[in-house]
């Protein structure tokens, strides 16, 4: 009952927006005198030379950033957990990158990693490079390094927080029993901790992936114009003064949404399998 308003708002904003995008992507915009329905714009988008390379790059950015975030986040979380000195201060420090808005991180990363940034100046000062042009290109680069760095900065602490708070709640009896029965620390980690954490890690991965897949501002401001993600492609079509480009923008948005929904479905499937297995593993 209390969730009613939540679902109402979500329904109106999210489902409403999605339906409108779907309708417009079929070329139906009566306000602009376009009232025929067709799949023409999907054909146009899917055959556009920019689309496939954009789709590939979007997957690349989302996968790389989320896989690295999760791997590094879990790794550092274990280290922190092992020291058992996770005091309040370091916990608060961990939250800082999470609350800083992306746009601020973008500016920060730009000023540190660009060819004229702090690192480059430092390398110049100690004689590593002869001019700013010698510094490797990490911003506006085709590999999206700058974009991925921003995501890592934001997401590693996020993954760590999730992992730490869950692993704290694991009953320590599991570990004691395992140790008693002669399990090595590696066995404890792979047979107890990781299976119990698997659902959390998967959720964290999906959060990171979905964000990297659908986010606009980071690749827009730090990515290469030669490697654009799907949301940027949609933005370009949407801001075109030619009204005919608008349904194409909506078609891209629908495609992004469909891919995201498929991801959620896969997530739910894997999660139910993992939970089952995690339970069995822990009990056996």
């Amino acid at each position: 009952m209390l969730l009613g308003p939540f679902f109402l708002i979500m329904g109106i904003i999210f489902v409403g927006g999605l339906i409108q995008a779907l309708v417009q992507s079929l070329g139906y915009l009566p306000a602009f005198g376009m009232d025929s329905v067709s799949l023409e714009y999907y054909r146009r988008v899917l055959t556009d030379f920019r689309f496939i390379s954009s789709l590939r790059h979007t997957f690349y950015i989302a996968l790389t950033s989320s896989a690295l975030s999760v791997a590094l986040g879990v790794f550092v979380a274990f280290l922190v957990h092992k020291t058992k000195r996770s005091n309040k201060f370091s916990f608060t420090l961990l939250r800082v990158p999470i609350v800083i808005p992306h746009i601020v991180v973008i500016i920060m990363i730009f000023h540190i990693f660009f060819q004229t940034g702090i690192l480059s100046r430092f390398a110049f000062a100690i004689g590593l490079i002869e001019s700013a042009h010698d510094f490797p290109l990490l911003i506006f680069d085709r590999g999206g390094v700058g974009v991925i760095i921003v995501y890592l900065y934001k997401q590693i602490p996020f993954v760590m927080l999730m992992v730490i708070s869950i692993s704290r709640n694991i009953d320590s009896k599991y570990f004691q029993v395992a140790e008693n029965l002669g399990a090595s620390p590696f066995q404890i980690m792979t047979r107890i901790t990781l299976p119990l954490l698997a659902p959390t890690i998967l959720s964290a991965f999906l959060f990171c992936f979905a964000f990297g897949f659908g986010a606009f501002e980071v690749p827009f401001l730090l990515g290469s114009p030669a490697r654009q993600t799907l949301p940027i492609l949609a933005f370009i079509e949407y801001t075109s003064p030619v009204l005919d480009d608008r349904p194409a923008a909506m078609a891209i948005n629908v495609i992004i949404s469909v891919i995201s929904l498929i991801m959620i479905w896969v997530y739910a499937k894997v999660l139910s399998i993992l939970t089952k297995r995690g339970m069995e593993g822990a009990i056996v």
Partner: protein
Amino acid sequence: MKKTIVIILTILMTLTLLAGCARNQSGAADEIDFSDFDAVLEAARGTTVNFYGWGGSAATNAWLDNVVGSTLYEQYGIRLNRVPMDIDAILNKLMGEMHAGVDSGDIDVVWINGENFYTAKNAGLLFGPITHYVPNFAVYLNPDDADLHYDFGTPIEGMQVPYGRAQLVFMGDTAVLDSFPTSAQELLELARRYPGRITYSAPPDFTGSAFVRNMLYEIVGFEAIFNAPRDEEAIYEIIRPGLDFLVELKPYLWQEGRTYPVDAPALQQMFIDGLVLMNVSYSPLHVAQMIFSGEYPETVQTFVFENGNIGNTHYMAIPYNAPNRAGAIALINHIISAEMQITKYDARNWGDLPVFDVQRLTPQQRELLDAIDNGIGILSPEVLFEHRLPEVQAYKIPIIERLWVQHVLHAG
């Protein structure tokens, strides 16, 4: 509870009706002959004229309120009421009023240009032609000026009056370069001499897109692109030599043209840091402002190509249902007067390029213009106008941007 709401609604509706009636009465003053400017001034005296437009710049708003508003009242007894509203909202409002059959709206003058003018004109949202009602139009503007005839390729046909102008300019540091390129060919030579030290922001960034069009103008000419049919294949055939030129330039650009700065601020940062030798801006006074704020050294100088740089113009129009047409004409005439345009050019007020033909100014007005000190490193309005090329049709711009992505960015 319900009763109170009903009562309030009734009162509100009555008030709206009354307001509507009152307005219709003032609208009845339309009997006047607009070609008789004295009669227009007579009718406008004592009225308020509503100016609707983008209100996002404090300097622009202050100039309208203080300089234009006060002189308009002193000289003609007309009050200026500036209403800040984005052009999309203005056009939606006018379209709504048109569908609802509102003959007397709220907007007397609208600040407009480009695709929005195209929309407004084609939808019949504008009153006019109006240019022949505005005496200063014939006094100060050059009839051969392309800005009077086409706005982003849309024939103006007297439906709007120029308000101010912007122009694409290049800039470099005289302490670094002995001379600046005066053509695309010379730019290529400069890039060859300094590999990796030239670049431009990637379209569809506004400035980068204008830069690319400027290069296309250099190679294939403005007329050819302007006259091209509305067809991607045909436009490609026409601009192909220009795109080939940009591909030829590519290996000498920053990062060998494999990537580009994403927008004008990024390019500007690279210019400030000395990574590149040249910057581009659509604001002709940019260098003076940056020298003044200490971000550029005093040796930075603005330059344009011999054959000209792209410029665009913003305009004023009168909606079809303007309640105070006489006041609107008086205001537009006042704004394009030499005095107002000169104060507008003053960077302390706004720093927007004037619309008049400098040759048509009286010696006293000329002195006023020359007395304006907008700082150093910039070009005079006269030089800019002599090197000014119009924009092509707005609908061709995304096509050109797409072709650039396909044939220049992803070339080879």
